[in-house]
């Protein structure tokens, strides 16, 4: 498995967290 440099790993983690938040907030259905 490839290793990610630490800065990119942190950035990607936050990117995915924010993406989940955005998708939940625009969903018409309660989660």
């Amino acid at each position, binding site marked *: *498995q*490839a290793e*990610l*440099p*630490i*800065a*990119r*790993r*942190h*950035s*990607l*983690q*936050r*990117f*995915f967290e*924010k*993406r*989940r938040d*955005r*998708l939940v907030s*625009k969903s018409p259905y309660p989660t």
Partner: protein
Amino acid sequence: SASFSTPAAAAAAAQPSDKTMLNQETLQQRLQALIEGARESWTYAIFWQSSYDYSGASVLGWGDGYYIGEEDKGKGRMKNSASSAAEQEHRKKVLRELNSLIAGPSSVTDDAVDEEVTDTEWFFLVSMTQSFVNGSGLPGQALFNGSPVWVAGSERLGTSPCERARQGQVFGLQTLVCIPSANGVVELGSTELIFQSSDLMNKVKVLFNFN
């Protein structure tokens, strides 16, 4: 990450007590404060970190980034991707692989990975793989000349000699800005047309001039 009422508050809160000035947490807070506190609708902010490669050449590489997208500003509309079905499949595949790198290969793939990947999200992700050597590209030019580069307008981006600007235009950006700061360059992109403002320059100065 914390939210701040003003860029100055963010800078004060982000001021570390030791000399680890460029750590990931404070960078993220500064980038967030920069675009969430702005009057303009910025889509993302990136900090390109300055360093040197093995041959001594100066290199700007990924420091950190904050993606806000187009839908978070309460405009009541979603930006849909102009990409083909095949391109979407490719993007989702890459996202799944990146997610497994972070969460582990046996992690459950969630909806956030399988949803459509917008053009600006893709541009932001691809940016993580890029670097600019010896004054090349839009960020490199800003650092090399010690002055901001502000490209506003789809046509100007599309006809720029810098590949990053042309790439940004292809993925729907209308404004791309690179502002040199201590130890790097702050880049902002937007799908909206935003003209040069001294307000933004001052915010970058407050938030990113680490000394």
